[in-house]
């Protein structure tokens, strides 16, 4: 099936940059996965990802992020919504117009990006088309793996001014 190929392609590329890819059937299962990964720690959910089915599944120990940075700083587990997953690069496209969404994306130590299975696309050209059609002000990003730098003698360090670990959860 075409979409299976796309998902396989996405997974292969994402894993190459150190992203863990999980496939679940629905948001309820996503919640189970997140709870297991959080292992008792607080989960901070970006407003963009605050779907009631996910929240219901997460139960207690979850907080919806606000635009106050101090409250999101270095949240152990953060959850954001992604609009597209791009097989060509193993990236997801996130919409972060609101500061609250950005803070979870930027300041969590471990980040989970939730994307619908029907939104896995082939290439950057598809992402370009999507961006072209979305008019108006905003803040969008292609995110591929974790924050990193090799500025000191080309030695790679992951998790600089961003998450150390990035997971993509493909839902549906």
């Amino acid at each position, binding site marked *: 099936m075409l979409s299976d190929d796309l998902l396989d392609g996405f997974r292969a590329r994402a894993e190459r940059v150190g992203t863990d890819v999980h496939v679940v059937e629905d948001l309820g299962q996503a919640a189970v996965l997140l709870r297991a990964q959080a292992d008792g720690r607080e989960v901070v959910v970006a407003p963009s990802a605050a779907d009631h089915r996910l929240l219901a599944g997460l139960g207690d120990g979850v907080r919806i992020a606000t635009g106050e940075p*101090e409250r999101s700083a270095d949240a152990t587990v953060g959850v954001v919504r992604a609009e597209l997953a791009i097989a060509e690069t193993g990236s997801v496209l996130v919409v972060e117009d609101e500061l609250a969404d950005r803070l979870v994306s930027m300041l969590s130590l471990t980040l989970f990006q939730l994307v619908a299975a029907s939104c896995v696309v082939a290439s950057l050209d598809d992402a370009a088309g999507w961006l072209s059609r979305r008019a108006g*002000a905003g803040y969008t990003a292609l995110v591929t793996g974790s924050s990193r730098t090799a500025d*000191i003698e*080309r030695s790679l360090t992951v998790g600089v001014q*961003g998450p150390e670990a990035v997971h993509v959860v493909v839902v549906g």
Partner: protein
Amino acid sequence: MSDGLRPWHERLDGALADPDVRGGLLDFQRSWRTSRDERIDELEELTGQTFDELRSQLAGVKRDVIADLPGHLANFRRNAEEAGSTVVEVGTASEAVAYISELCHDRGVSLLVKGKSMVSEEIGLNAHLEGSGVEAVETDLGEWLLQLAGDHPSHLVMPAIHKRKEQIAQLLTATLGRPFPPDDIDAMVKSARTELRERFLTAGAGLSGANALVAESGSVMLVTNEGNNRLATSLPPLHIVVVGAEKLVPTFQDAMLQVRLLARSATGQSITTYTTFVTGPRTGQEQHIVVIDNGRSTMAADPDFASALGCIRCGACADVCPPYQVVGGHAFGHVYTGAIGLVNTPFHHGLEAGAGPQSLCVSCGACAVVCPAEIPLPTQILEVRRAVAEELDTSRWKELALRAFASRRLVGAATRLLAVTGAPFRDGRLSRLPGPRRHVGWRTPPVVPLVPARSRGDLTARDRTPLAETAVTGRRVLLFLQCVTDRLDPPTAVGAARLLRAAGAEVVVPRSQHCCGLPAYDAGYWEPARRMARATIETLEGEDDVVTPAASCAIAMVHDYERLFRDEPVWQDRARQLADRVHDLVSYLQGPARLPDGALHGRSDEAVTVHRFCQSGNVAESGDEMVRLVERLCGIDVRPLPEGDVCCGFGGSTSLSVPEVARHILDRKLGCVDETGAHVVLTDNPGCVLHLRGGADASGRHVEVLHVAEFLARRLGPSPVSTPYALPPTMC
């Protein structure tokens, strides 16, 4: 101009005195090349297009933008303003800093956090802000460390590549007051996270550059890995973007083409961690996009330099550059480093700022091969050199020397004099001169033979029957000796002539030939170059093929003459006609004068490697032709030379004006030769022959360096001509 840089000569001397700089950069260049090539292969597979096709596409996009910067900017402005941005155009660097500091002052900003921005370096923003009471803190790790050290970036993408981890550990220990072990790079990097967090949270403004401005939406594209730029552009209530208009691209589709090429060329990644599109400010934020000229419209209007505005700041041109590896970015450039820095510095910072750095270019052409925007950097650097020679050279002695060199008779007389006075110092082909170590300590000079190639009997004597029937059997071929071969390495010329005769050609050596003008062209003195080029065109005019053992001259005649005569259509036409008939010896021996396989079979126990003249690979794209020629004619296995494409360091004028740089490039090349275990090094260019031969000798290496013509011709057996004189040596 307050760019805070020390004078160029100081930067150069400091760099040459620091072995860590060139050691670190050598490792960097090698590993960059491996990952870049892998990523480009991957891109070609992904898109079904070659790198050349893709970069041609990008160059086309940028060409259209540059041809109408005001139009595309107006489009961008309309969309950005609709998204809530303020777009302001400023002319000079000082207008830009004035606008930004007034804006900060007006909004009560006392702390500004910066994402990486080369334009902010270009305009000297930090110093100006500090002067007006705004603390500007770099947040990109490399830039932050450099700021703490009072230093400047030395590379477009890896700004702190010149720093060792021990130095950084010491810096952080001293600055932050807690110990940093030099091997715990992770801890050093993580210190940025804790130290800078508070700055992000309290800053009144955040400043970024832009990797692209997407006109169709009014978006600023930021290509990053670290995440600091995203924090800097999101948290503070004021976001300032400082950018040149040449960063415009019409659509997101165009932006993705740039994205596909940028990370692969810059860091050897398929894509960076973050590709962020910022369209307008967020709720509760102001955004000002400051679009700066600072010489860009002058570049756009100049047909020789407009294409340089297509630069996507990947740094690949620095990553393949041999002199850059030796001296690093502080000397190889001004604010902008690498080959692109040599081209744009005169426009952004004045010709004098670019004069020193451009002298380091060896014209090997490696940068043009990897540039993802298809910018003809080597040609542009020579244009800068010409401007420096014409406008800044007050001593004029170089020009006088080159004008004198244009006279064949004068050169003939001078070489005879040198041959006679140098006779006591002869040691085979080399001269054991007592001289300043700067010039002879690392490269033993050649002997000047008393009899130049042009006067030797074995050059023109029909000494044997042809070896085989070829496409040149019975054909007249004009042999162009080249000034260096003629006067300093006659066996190469004799070898070339004998090989052509072995293929059945009737070899004619026009008496009036001299120098093709390349040394003068390369040095930036185009008038003497034209004089010598005209004489060469006249000497070689006709219908016959012209063959030369000097790959550099063949390339000059085929590629550079057109440029030299661009204001003289008649000469340009004659030059083009000559270009159609010019061949370098190696390609001629693989083409029309193709002797059968095994025709020069003989000794097969020699351990041979081949150094191809850098431009043969990078400009003439000859591939491994010379290796194939030697292997098939002689039936021997040529040992592959690591970094075979990299220049030997001769670089024409460069090895005379900055010998220390030429020396280090030569060391790198000879180190690669060592790795092969070869005893014989063959090359297709006389400049390389003398440079490598002199270097091998001075370093005590027992390696024989030969032009491939001499090596192959030895296998024809000795010439029966007993006296070397055809004409009395006082003629021509």
